[in-house]
């Protein structure tokens, strides 16, 4: 009798502990990268994808900032999800996001002042990035903290790679450089005519549109 009890107890303990990176969890990260990309499929966060993708360097900073904010706000909201009263959940989410964004902005100001000047108001505007709030409402409110962190990482990376690709083409054709390194002069092409359209928001729309087109042709995704 006693051995039986011990065995079932062991089984019960083992069952809920899932591998740290099980198939399901890997999917949480990989889904937003392509099939369920927040920018190209869900079409969220377009505003910042247009605003800060003129050059690679600010875009990279923005990617890191947004990913950090999504991950930590997911973690915080998920940890206190059972305490949050349903009627005020949106404002609670907003308060958490706003706090994190302000922290990011203050840290940038203290240690990366030049970047802080370039990004200026756009860091503050992470608060209004629909991806962050969308993930909180759709995922973190209903899932455990660890899964929520993975979900945040997935969404953050999904957002990041899209805006980095957009920024790559915009900086290459708009300013003739990558990370402020003059590419065309380095390979021997002098006076490369830069395209002013790429520096405008219109350039971002075009690159993003082409990106969505290519992606949907490959995945066969159709909007209903």
């Amino acid at each position, binding site marked *: 009798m006693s051995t039986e009890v011990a065995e079932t107890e062991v089984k019960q303990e083992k069952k809920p502990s899932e591998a740290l990176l099980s198939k399901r969890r890997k999917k949480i990260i990989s889904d937003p990268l392509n099939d369920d990309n927040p920018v190209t499929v869900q079409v969220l966060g377009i505003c910042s994808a247009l*605003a*800060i993708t*003129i*050059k690679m360097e*600010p875009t990279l900073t923005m990617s890191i900032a947004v990913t950090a904010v999504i991950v930590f706000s997911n973690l915080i909201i998920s940890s206190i999800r059972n*305490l*949050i*009263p*349903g*009627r*005020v959940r949106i*404002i*609670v989410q907003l*308060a*958490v996001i706003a*706090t994190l964004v*302000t*922290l990011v902005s*203050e*840290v940038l*100001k*203290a*240690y990366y*002042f030049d970047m802080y*000047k*370039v*990004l*200026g*108001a756009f860091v503050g505007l992470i608060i209004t990035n629909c991806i962050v709030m969308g993930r909180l409402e759709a995922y973190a409110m209903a899932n455990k903290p660890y899964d929520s962190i993975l979900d945040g990482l997935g969404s953050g990376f999904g957002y990041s790679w899209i805006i980095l690709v957009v920024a790559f083409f915009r900086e290459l054709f*708009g*300013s003739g450089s990558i990370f402020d390194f003059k590419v065309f002069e380095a390979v021997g092409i002098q006076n490369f005519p830069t395209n*002013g359209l790429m*520096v*405008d928001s219109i350039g971002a729309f075009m690159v993003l549109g082409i990106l969505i087109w290519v992606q949907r042709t490959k995945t066969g995704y159709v909007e209903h």
Partner: protein
Amino acid sequence: MQRSNTYILLFSMVLTIILGGLLSMASVMLKPAQEKQIELDTKKKILGAVMDISSIKKPEELLALYDQKVKSEVVDINGDLVTADEKGNPIVAEKVNIQKNYRFAPEDRLFPVYKFTGESGTVEAYIFPMFGAGLWDWISGYIALEDDLNTIKGVAFDHKSETPGLGARITTSEVQQRFVGKKIYEGNELVSVAMVKGEGNQGLTEHQVDGMSGATLTGKGVNSMLQTYLGYYEPYLQQKKSGETVALN
């Protein structure tokens, strides 16, 4: 699950206190680092207006160079020296906040002057700070004049929220280089310099600077800022000029 109003109120209060506390803590802890960055940034811009500082990477080196090379004073709208405020406290040029002064009437403002000195202690360049409105928010700048007080030796601009890649280009050396060598005086009359519309313009006069494509309005802001502040500093410029002629005679 429907929760009671008391719970919701309590929850909101506790959350507010925690988040508020976190933010104020971060603000207090990061303040010294931020102030250091701002001081460094100011001195970087002052030096950047007269010389190439891109090779200096260490903040300490830059601050040391600043202390060695730059002497500063503060003047009023008439170009007269101001050394102490109403309470008798000494005024330090580096501590004068141009942005705060911008809110006062021009007669009440303080105008810092930075003098870049060469090896023998002679003044090689005069650097004047300025402040104005760009397209979206404030812009500020430093203009360095050669010792003839006419030729522009260099400029350094800053902004709060001009569009990256468009108006924000005023902070790039590519755009700032275009001001070098331009003149602010036509004979004895102050005409300032102005950015023109469009980019790649040919046949510019010595008072015209090639503009930024897609950022004409930021350029206009820069123009009016230059015009206004050079006007404020003109009495000082005149004093210095006449002082020099007297000395020569």
